[in-house]
């Protein structure tokens, strides 16, 4: 397995665990919730960079025939990206740890609080769909990393290898 695939896999697993912790501020506390969310923003940026070739390739071929599944995946990823921005922005606007730590104060607007809750709930659904879309890749990569790898190449793995070569 290529080094980039291992990096992708470890980053994605870490991001997912971080996402689960961030989604439970009652357990973690507000400070961890906010600072970890900032770190997750960086992780998402790296995730996008590692999948850049796929993004560019599908953007170019978005309207060609026979890409229904991929197109749905692409649209889903955009929705997840927009929802992530909404979560980050509304989180910044109601921040009680990160923004005060930077010496900034923002006006209170209760709409941001509602938007933060709503977008966080939507992100759970979108994340569930995102993981389902890539489930075969997750399972295959886990098996390969644990040394129980299949010799059979899944389309997702083949796509990843193309990305590495590109």
């Amino acid at each position, binding site marked *: 397995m290529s080094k980039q695939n291992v990096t992708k896999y470890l980053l994605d697993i870490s991001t997912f665990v971080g996402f689960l912790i961030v989604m*439970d501020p009652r357990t973690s506390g*507000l400070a961890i919730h906010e600072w970890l969310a900032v770190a997750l923003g960086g992780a998402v940026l790296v995730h996008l960079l590692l999948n850049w070739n796929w993004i560019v390739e599908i953007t170019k071929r978005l309207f060609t025939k026979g890409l229904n599944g991929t197109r749905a995946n692409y649209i889903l990823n955009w929705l997840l990206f927009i929802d992530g*921005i909404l979560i980050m*922005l509304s989180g910044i606007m109601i921040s*009680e740890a990160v923004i005060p730590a930077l010496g900034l104060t923002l006006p209170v607007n209760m709409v941001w609080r509602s938007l933060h809750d709503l977008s966080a709930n939507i992100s759970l659904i979108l994340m*569930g769909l995102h993981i389902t879309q890539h489930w075969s890749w997750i399972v295959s990569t886990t098996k390969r990393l644990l040394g129980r790898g299949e010799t059979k190449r899944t389309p997702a793995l083949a796509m990843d290898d193309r990305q590495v070569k590109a």
Partner: protein
Amino acid sequence: MSTLYRILVILVVATLIGGLIYAAVGSGNSTSGLPAPADGQPRPEDGESPEGDSVLPLGVLKSLVIMSIAGGAYLAAGKAISRKKSLTPKSLIPNH
């Protein structure tokens, strides 16, 4: 260099989307004009405890359940659509 360019593209797109959202929310004009609460104070609504008051990670379980349901529903819908597509008109005609 290309990595920096890609980061810039992602940040510009994110800023544009964030700006649009900010403008849309700002146009609602429900700002109270009050400053944000001081560090450590609870949020005005049913805010989370600053320290974290739950021992059981129920939120994590809730998240996993919601994601599983969403994924399961997606898979079920996908299977139903593919089953519908695989049905040919002949198969719908009963044998006599």
